């Protein structure tokens, strides 16, 4: 199993840095271009949610991202020490209703679930841990 990790501030300027970091690992792990794109989007959406919801847009907090891979899959772990996030509150968004109500948001989690093979959430030692898994053979 190979791995790589970064730790950065919860500022949205870092989303590009996060995407570049995850894409480089996914490419090294052997994923095709289309799947690299999907993985970086899922990680972007997860980190955006951490910045907005766990840290309430405070750009000075800490996000840790670690990526590990072997010949079969890529595992991305995102940790933060912000507010707990309850994935049980997730409902599949109804775009038509959202538009009528001029509402937005809630799309990120739906995208993450559509783009990755497995999505897990744990709360440990006052930290949120989001785990995203993509299998190589399904790419």
């Amino acid at each position, binding site marked *: 199993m190979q791995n790589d990790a970064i730790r950065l501030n919860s500022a949205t*300027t870092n989303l590009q840095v996060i995407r570049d970091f995850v894409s480089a690992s996914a490419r090294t792990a052997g994923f095709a271009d289309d799947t690299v794109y999907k993985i970086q989007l899922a990680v972007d959406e997860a980190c955006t949610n951490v910045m907005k919801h766990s840290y309430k847009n405070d750009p000075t907090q800490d996000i840790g991202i670690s990526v590990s891979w072997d010949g079969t899959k890529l595992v991305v772990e995102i940790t933060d020490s912000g507010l707990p996030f309850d994935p049980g509150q997730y409902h599949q968004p109804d775009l038509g209703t959202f538009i009528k109500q001029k509402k937005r948001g809630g799309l*990120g989690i739906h995208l993450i679930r559509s783009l990755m093979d497995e999505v897990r959430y744990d709360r440990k030692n006052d930290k949120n841990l989001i785990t995203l898994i993509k299998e190589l053979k399904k790419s």
Partner: protein
Amino acid sequence: MSNFSIEIREDRNIKILNLSGYLDAHNSNELEDQLKELIDAGFTRIVVNFSNLNYIASAGLGVFMAYIEDVREQSGDIKLCEMTDKVYTVFDLLGFPVLYDITRSELEAIEKFKV
């Protein structure tokens, strides 16, 4: 440093927005401000050209969700065109093709306003 930019043109009273670069939660407010400015100035026939956009996250799609009713209430629309396959996939996963006009070419998008 910005890796996202917007260029605005006008064609037969239709405003055309050319998006370039990477659109995410960091810069989606730039698109929002621009769109709001056009709508507030009375422009409700809008075409968004994605041919130079490399990447879009849901924050970008959220902007189109927030303003589409405003323009449709005034008999206008926001039509989307020239997406790369990667960008289109994101719109498709979130169900946009059912509720928005998404066309291959910019010309098709402009023509749709005449129907």
